[in-house]
């Protein structure tokens, strides 16, 4: 299964999706998986190969995130 990136806020999820788009990294907006949290927010599903470059970009843009490898 593809890894999932979790965010504290909707704002960070929106900013993260935009950064993926801008950097030609494919991602899918999904509900936060129930086995991770009872959270009602959104998360990003991403290809494993893109994980390292995109998290570098997130860190550079001060986007708080956690990675969940399924």
């Amino acid at each position: 299964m593809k890894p999932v990136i979790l965010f504290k806020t909707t704002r960070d999820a929106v900013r993260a999706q935009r950064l993926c788009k801008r950097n030609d990294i494919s991602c899918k907006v999904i509900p936060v998986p129930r086995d991770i949290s009872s959270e009602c927010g959104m998360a990003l599903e991403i290809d494993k190969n893109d994980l390292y470059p995109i998290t570098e970009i997130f860190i550079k843009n001060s986007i708080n995130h956690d990675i969940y490898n399924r």
Partner: protein
Amino acid sequence: MNHYFDNAATSFPKPKEVSLYMSDYIAKQGGTYGRSAYPRAFEASVKVESLREELMSFLGTKNSSQIFFTFNATVGLNTLLFGMDLHDCHILTSPLEHNATMRPLSKLAKEKNITFDYLPHGSDGKIDASKIDSVLKSSTRLIIINHQSNINGVIQPVQKIKAASGRIPVLLDLAQSAGHCDIELDNWDIDFAAFTGHKGLLGPTGTGGIYIKDPDKIEPLIYGGTGSNSDSFEMPSFIPDKYEAGTPNVAGLTGLLGALENRPVPLHTHEDFIELLDKISSIPQLTIFKAKNSNNQGPVFSINHCDYSCSEMAQILYDKYMIETRSGLHCAPLAHKTLGTFPSGTVRFALSVYHTKDDFDYLLSALRSL
């Protein structure tokens, strides 16, 4: 002809994209902010976040993460003033404050042992920054400035006031100035600000927000669901969720985005406006209330007539010329006391970018005929 001169109450007309964006959201797009992950909800969330980014240039800040949405400037000012834990201290305000500030302050005075004084000023209410030292106390915790008066349009010299205030935090009420004046929250080193979306920014009612330089200093006013930390009864401590409980006015915020992305080119110049003020000043039956210096003049002014009350004058202007104005105290009794027009009030005229020189000529001829 544009006969609507009540833009300090709410702007009209608005860019056509305001209603287009809103009707598109309501009729076709829909979706809530956060909470869900399907594309409709995500796109609605993107709109709200795009607005937050768009507002940066209007507020003069590089950090959109310090902008939080409220339903208007009044809710914003209440959030700030009741969230600061002010008690047993002294506050300074401008002499032209609106009741959106004065009523919360009055409550704080009664319940939290707050005292307040007014900043030194000239006869038009413009603050004299060189004299601020004389009113500062060791207990002064906050300075509140109504950036642009909703009565006579005076624009306060914020940068000088901040420089003269040392480390005392400054709260700016941008209700009248946002969209009309240059605002530089970062360069002026402003601590707190509140703005509305439906006046100079030309958006719909029910939109606005606050800016907080250091969010650790303000507790939320409203508690509730945020779509985050949903397993907890506690409000999130992180931003923007800390200040944005409950479903936001997505339709309104989308409309405000439409306004900001489609700013109209002004149909008159500042010089045209000052020329209008000069001509009105020369009408013998009228007393005009405006800034002494035209460089500090925002697009609002008031008048009184030697024979008619302000309410009679407003009615005549509408009945004879269909000119829409607001008469009375404009929710700003302090400003009227400062200007010597309390309790009788004034007739207020507030322009928008949509007024032309022809509209000014029409207004002038109506005022001359009174």
